[in-house]
């Protein structure tokens, strides 16, 4: 079993290194094939491990070697395969494998094909470290590793030029990449502080040691640690106010969006909260804050998705919104539900993104859904996939999203947090609306793309086949909910609805369904027949507010980015040059000037010298006399 752990972990690494060997040479299809096969091996290993953990109920703990050891601190490279991590491993490797195969088709024409696979596999490796590590420092390695890979992949098309925010809200891939990295770093500082708090209070960073020692810690320490760790999670999972990078990250190639910015990396924050659930369950205030923030983000992101015209950005907002759901569940203590939604969401959201990638591919990288329409004829399979994924996302029964999202909404009701419940229900309606608005605008109605002279075509067959596992899972994943609960609650605290909620469950489901179907119906009514633009609505304040993401990016630019640059400039030119350096030079000048000044004493006239000598002699005599008198 230990070997399997290493295979699961290092197969992506091998894949990355292999692709890197050809990183600077022109496109070679076999690189993609080898990378995909290695990822598949990793998936198989993960699946076997999952089965092992499921069947035996025991976790596998391996320690590869010691990493850092200084003072009393010892951090090993240790890997833990238990119910939680094996779930994540399976999900990550499965989605990754699909995305890798998908990328062979999608990146077909890109000259940096090999480089892309190198980055993508490196990302999977980092993600595996993140989920498999048995300590917080190892988690942090993966945490930063995925950050870097995300930076590399968002900025994959680095050669694109910066444009204004009006032209492209993300400015340029390299700009978006830097934004993502820096915003994540802000959160990483929180994460580091959390690690420090844990270390100085527990003396170790191993999960088992830390969790065993938690009852001995004071509540303020626990609160601080929980809050700091959650700040870390906020960055990775793009929670408000660190959310702006996620939509800008859509500048990366679409497979990247599917893998990193939908299925895996952004859920790392949720994973952290689930992993560290003993800490969070002991800090109800912080947990409630998480739930409240999650609910807010769910609504907030969904509202922005309502009016967006960019295919990928809509999905990105929906990802943000679903992450909010997950945090709501985790914050309310329903860790296993959060994990389940995480997995289900990974499947249907990746599917949705890959479908969007197909559309993009067909539309020559056009992303404005107002310029699409009627694509279902040309792209039947993509239409079906995206339709399924949207149904799952909207939470229509039998699809995966129904079970997971409904459970979260019920949890909110069950906990008695009715405000959160109400917001989540409304958000469910909004989710249904925007996801079907997108489906209808893209695939139904009049064929607006013809104006631009685009001839859409379906994606390669093997790509479509590769996507099928995700489609299947998007449909059926929900049926495994019971089994999943039984599986993960061996590790995670079980969360059961109260008797009262149980009685009301049909009503609750019905309410959510009414909202969801209402959303779909509204979208159908408005967009299925074709695009009728409403000038008045589009010029209204609310519409503009939403379309501009509440002007938050502009706010950040005006109040953080620009002042920072300005202060830096001022620090350099005014403080460093004019004060600090000028002081040093001033001292040097003073010495130089005093020398220059005293040079004038050197008149060459003996008489003057004698005068000076006399002055000196008198002074010395006075000093001698005084000291003689005083001493």
């Amino acid at each position: 079993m230990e070997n399997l752990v290493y295979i699961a972990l290092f197969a992506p690494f091998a894949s990355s290194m292999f692709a890197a060997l050809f990183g600077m040479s022109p496109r070679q299809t076999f690189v993609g094939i080898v990378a995909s096969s290695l990822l598949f091996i990793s998936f198989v290993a993960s699946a076997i491990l999952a089965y092992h953990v499921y069947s035996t109920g025991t976790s596998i703990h391996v320690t590869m070697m010691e990493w850092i050891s200084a003072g009393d601190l010892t951090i090993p490279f240790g890997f833990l395969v238990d119910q939680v991590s094996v779930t994540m491993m399976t999900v990550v490797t499965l989605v990754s494998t699909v995305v890798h195969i998908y990328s062979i088709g999608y990146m077909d024409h890109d000259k940096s094909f090999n480089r892309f696979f190198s980055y993508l596999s490196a990302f999977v490796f980092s993600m595996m470290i993140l989920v498999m590590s048995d300590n917080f420092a190892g988690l942090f390695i993966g945490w930063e590793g995925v950050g870097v890979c995300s930076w590399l992949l968002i900025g994959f098309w680095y050669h694109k030029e910066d444009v204004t925010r009006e032209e492209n809200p993300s400015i340029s891939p390299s700009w978006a990449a830097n934004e993502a990295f820096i915003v994540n770093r802000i959160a990483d500082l929180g994460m580091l502080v959390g690690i420090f708090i844990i270390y100085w209070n527990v003396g170790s960073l191993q999960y088992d040691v830390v969790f065993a020692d938690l009852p001995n810690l004071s509540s303020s320490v626990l609160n601080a640690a929980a809050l700091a760790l959650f700040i870390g999670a906020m960055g990775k999972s793009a929670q408000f106010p660190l959310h702006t990078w996620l939509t800008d990250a859509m500048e990366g190639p679409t497979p990247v969006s599917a893998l990193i910015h939908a299925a895996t990396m952004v859920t790392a924050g949720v994973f952290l909260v689930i992993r560290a659930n003993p800490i969070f369950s002991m800090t109800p205030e912080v947990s409630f804050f998480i739930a409240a923030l999650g609910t807010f983000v769910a609504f907030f992101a969904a509202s922005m998705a309502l009016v967006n015209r960019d295919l990928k950005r809509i999905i990105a907002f929906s990802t943000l919104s679903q992450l909010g759901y997950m945090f709501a569940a985790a914050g309310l203590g329903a860790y296993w539900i959060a994990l389940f939604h995480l997995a289900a969401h990974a499947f249907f959201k990746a599917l949705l993104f890959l479908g969007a990638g197909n559309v993009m591919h067909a539309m020559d990288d056009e992303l404005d859904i107002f310029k699409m329409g009627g694509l279902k004829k040309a792209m039947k399979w993509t239409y079906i996939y995206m339709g399924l994924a949207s149904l799952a996302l909207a939470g229509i029964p039998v699809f995966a999203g129904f079970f997971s999202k409904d459970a979260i909404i019920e949890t909110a009701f069950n906990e008695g947090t009715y405000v959160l419940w109400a917001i989540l229900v409304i958000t469910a309606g909004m989710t249904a609306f925007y996801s079907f608005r997108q489906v209808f605008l893209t695939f139904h109605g009049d064929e607006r793309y013809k104006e631009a002279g685009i001839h859409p075509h379906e994606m390669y067959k093997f790509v479509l086949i590769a996507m099928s596992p995700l489609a299947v899972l998007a449909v059926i994943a929900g049926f495994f909910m019971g089994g999943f609960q039984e599986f993960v609650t061996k590790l995670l605290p079980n969360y059961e609805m109260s008797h009262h909620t149980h009685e009301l469950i049909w009503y609750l489901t019905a309410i959510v369904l009414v909202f969801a179907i209402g959303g779909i119906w509204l979208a159908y009514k408005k967009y299925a027949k074709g695009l009728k633009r409403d000038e008045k609505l589009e010029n209204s304040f609310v519409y503009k507010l939403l379309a501009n993401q509440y002007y938050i990016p502009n706010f950040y630019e005006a109040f953080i980015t620009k002042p920072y640059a300005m202060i830096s400039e001022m620090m350099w030119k005014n403080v460093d040059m004019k004060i600090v350096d000028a002081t040093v030079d001033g001292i040097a000048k003073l010495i130089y000037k005093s020398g220059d000044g005293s040079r004038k004493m050197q008149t060459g006239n003996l008489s003057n010298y004698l005068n000076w000598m006399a002055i000196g002699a008198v002074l010395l005599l006075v000093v001698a006399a005084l000291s003689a008198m005083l001493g």
Partner: protein
Amino acid sequence: MIGLSHYLIVSALIFSIGLIGVLRRRNLLMLFFATEVMLNAVNIAFAAISHYYNDLAGQMFAFFIIAIAASEVAVGLGLLIVLYKKYGTLDLDDLASMKG
């Protein structure tokens, strides 16, 4: 009765006169004269102290001072002559060639 302090005061006064000369004079020869005045002032002090303390060391010092003064004059006057031949003047204001 004339005490040591009388002599010392006279010595100090003469010394100061010499000092004034040194400071005031611009002519090198006159400067030499002024230094002689100062040397003599010191000699008086030495002799007086020697007398009042019954110690010959003071006289010895005065004696050597005279010897040094003699050598100084011999060499110094030689130099003055050389200077005068070269520049035609002994005025310090005209001899300021070492201006920094």
